[in-house]
């Protein structure tokens, strides 16, 4: 692993490990505490596997009361806590710390309420994203945000990361589909934000909790909006000689007032890797491939599909297929959905990036990436949520070659800097975590970051929840102008800075 500075482990906590483990076993009786190294290995990393660390102890609570007791216990004793859902984070958001309790929410796995009249599902946070859809699909409903890891990722993790998916231009991100949560603050207080009603009575704390990457509180219950499945969906598979034409086609579709359910782009290397892998019938003589999916009532799709086809032709498409059956639509998607493993077949390792850019900057960013690719001597394949500008470059490297991981990471950082330079952002849906933490300064000033940190100070003033993530530098809340003076002493004067 490359030089990632994490908070210095607290020696006092490490020395009291046996006592902490024993106390955790009292709070969570039965099988809920994993303290043997062999057992803890399963939790030493998340989806960003380049980084690994064994935690102090793994605790798997089953009730909100247990979560509250664990957090209060740790808060009172200055012990750090790292929350974890299914561990599918691609940015190291659930990377353990040596001196931190790893709070694993996977046993919170029940659906609590299905309410078709209000179109809501209330679930415990460990229920998978797809599990929510499975619970309601017999009635023709589904949960819209569909991150690619939806079979495994948990709804609690989705709240922490504000997860997206391929349908979010039309249906929104997690933040737009979550109505309420129950959560526990680091001091053990249990709060309810929202519910089956809309909007907040005061500050939009649910809005800031969504996407806060486990730094503000631990979610113990989630209420989401479910939607009726669109009556039908059809997809167009359109090939272009270059990304410029494909990009203009996307702009013209939107300019015509059409918001497709999904709109995905792949570049030449990604097309060829995917086709080799799944044989979806993708054209191989194009440099950009668009999948445009229209969903809704049948006559609406029939009305729009010809318009999209005409727009594509006007922009110089050299191939255009329209799905005529559900099977064919799924085949169109098969290549896109398998793009990551397909790239995994042509390279020993790949590193997936996640910037977002204004769509019109795509040609410039792709050209920039080609130049970087030549400079670093590493290949890159691109898949792109074209509707919303979210770019996933896959950098190809071989971890067994000394120095290649470092090169890949430097390449990735350069790409993200370019995204910010053209008006975009560091991360569209994967989160900052540890991965992009040290790049936050390219997008934000110290004052920007301090105002984010002030939210943290309101929720977790001692910086005990998931420290070392998101913020490049932990600044003591007191230092930023708010003094916690008790009996002449500042609490926790020994919090390390890094």
């Amino acid at each position: 692993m490359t030089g990632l500075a994490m908070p210095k482990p607290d020696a006092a906590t490490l020395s009291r490990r046996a006592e902490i483990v024993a106390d955790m076993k009292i709070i969570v009786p039965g099988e809920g505490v994993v303290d043997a190294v062999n057992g803890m290995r399963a939790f030493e990393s998340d989806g960003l596997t380049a980084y690994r660390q064994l935690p102090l102890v793994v605790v798997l609570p089953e009730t909100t009361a247990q979560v509250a007791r664990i957090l209060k216990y740790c808060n009172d004793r200055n012990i750090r806590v790292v929350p974890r859902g299914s561990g599918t984070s691609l940015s190291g958001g659930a990377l353990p710390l040596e001196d931190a309790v790893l709070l694993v929410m996977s046993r919170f796995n029940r659906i609590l309420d299905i309410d078709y009249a209000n179109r809501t599902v209330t679930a415990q946070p460990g229920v998978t994203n797809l599990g929510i859809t499975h619970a309601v699909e017999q009635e023709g409903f589904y949960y819209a945000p569909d991150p690619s890891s939806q079979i495994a990722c948990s709804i609690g993790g989705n709240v922490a990361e504000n997860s997206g998916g391929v349908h979010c231009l039309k249906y929104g991100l997690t933040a737009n589909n979550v109505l309420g949560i129950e959560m526990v603050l680091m001091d053990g207080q249990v709060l309810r934000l929202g519910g089956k009603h809309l909007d907040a009575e005061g500050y939009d704390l649910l809005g800031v909790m969504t996407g806060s990457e486990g730094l503000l509180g631990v979610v113990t219950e989630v209420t989401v909006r479910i939607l009726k499945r669109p009556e039908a969906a059809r997809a167009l598979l359109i090939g272009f000689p270059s990304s410029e034409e494909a990009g203009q086609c996307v702009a013209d579709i939107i300019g015509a007032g059409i918001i497709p359910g999904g709109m995905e782009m792949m570049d030449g290397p990604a097309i060829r890797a995917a086709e080799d892998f799944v044989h979806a019938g993708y054209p191989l003589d194009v440099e950009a491939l668009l999948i445009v999916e229209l969903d809704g009532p049948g006559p609406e799709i029939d009305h729009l599909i010809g318009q999209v086809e005409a727009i594509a032709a006007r922009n110089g498409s050299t191939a255009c297929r329209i799905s005529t059956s559900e099977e064919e639509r799924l085949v169109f998607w098969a290549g896109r959905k398998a793009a990551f493993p397909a790239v995994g077949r042509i390279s020993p390792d790949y590193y997936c990036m996640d910037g977002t850019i204004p769509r019109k900057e795509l040609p410039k960013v792709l050209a920039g990436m080609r130049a970087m690719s030549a400079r670093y001597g590493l290949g890159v394949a691109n898949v792109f949520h074209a509707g919303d500008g979210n770019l996933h470059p896959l950098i190809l490297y071989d971890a067994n070659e000394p120095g290649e991981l470092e090169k890949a990471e430097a390449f990735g950082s350069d790409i993200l800097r370019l995204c910010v330079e053209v008006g975009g952002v560091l991360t569209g849906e994967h989160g900052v975590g540890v991965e992009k933490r040290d790049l936050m300064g390219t997008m934000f000033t110290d004052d920007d970051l301090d105002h984010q940190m002030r939210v943290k100070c309101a929720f977790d003033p001692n910086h005990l929840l998931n420290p070392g993530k998101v913020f490049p530098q932990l600044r003591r809340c007191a230092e930023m102008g708010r003094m916690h003076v008790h009996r002449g002493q500042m609490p926790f004067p020994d919090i390390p800075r890094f």
Partner: protein
Amino acid sequence: MTTFTPTTSAEMLEAVRWAAGEGEPIEVVGHGSKRGIGRPVQTEHVIDCSGLAGVTLYEPEELVLSARAGTPVAEIERLLAEKNQEFAFEPMDYGPLLGGEPGRGTIGGLLAANLAGPRRLKAGAARDHILGIQAVSGRGEAFKSGGRVVKNVTGYDLSKVMAGSWGTLAVLTDVTFKVLPRSETETTMALRGLTEEQAIAAMAAAMGSSAEVSAAAHLPETVTGKVLDGALSGRASTLLRLEGFGPSVTYRTEMLKTLFSMLEIDTIDEAASRSLWRQVRDVVPFADGTGKPVWRVSMAPSEGHRMVMALRMQAAVDAYYDWQGGLIWLRMESDSEADTLRALVRRHGGGHATLVRASLAERAAVPVFEPQPAALAALSARLKTEFDPKAILNPGRMVASHGGGVAASHATGG
């Protein structure tokens, strides 16, 4: 009394920095179109944001628009309409209800009040469309959050924190919103003569169908005559709106007609439909020129009418429903009945009630915004303190204890 009229972000920063340095409370206003909402704010100084105006970026193909916070919403909506686009969250206009002119209000105020409209269930509120902000916090420091792209999880979403904060955390200087295409056409079906209970069930069935209903409201018999110049007078109207491309709207209209084949249905054409929903949105039925208390209540759609039924046993009240029954507009005959109403909201599954119209005296005496449970109130207070430690921004507008109020200003010497 000083009124600051900054015309640049730098001037705004300077004004707030001064107030922060001196600990001088200031009222933050745009056009003042929603000034009557919230606890009365009494300050020596005012920051008038309306001079900080102008659209700074509009790229229709990228679905994005940025503007200075004091830009008139009406100006932005005109600009969007030229490109057949709009704010999909259909921001309401409080002007008619509060006895002011229609069409006033700034884009900063729109976000600070987290405005929404009948499309709330389908398209969200201002909070769901804000992409980025620049602001000056009560500490006198400029900061930004978010950006100009739809998909962004870089750092905490402070833009959402600004939504519905009523100018109590920071003064906005710039905002960037997602914009969307306007629907090609729309039509509304009015189911006639349903009881409230039947109406709630019908709206749930319509919203849960694949007809993609974009708005569902119920106007009881006492209210239905107050829209469209009385065209719907007589029997209660349950309104279902369909929007989109022509062939799709036609098809979905038939779908709903089949779903409700047992009921009497009036179909309202595009032009009338647009006026109708603007009236529902802007609470025109209660824009009666009086100061009678009006509540805006948000509850689970299935529960609102039960709460109203119980309330009618205890108080004289007129009511209608938007958001499938989840948004309840209530006009009280005399007293605001705050405690009675809020107890009933809690008993019927919870939610929140905001007193959006009331006399000055009542707004000073009754919590305008729903009081929060202790732990949540304490967290909100900590957030306020972090952003505005001296409580200089709109002190006490949302919560009495967040600065302001007669007692507090005396104690600190104003």
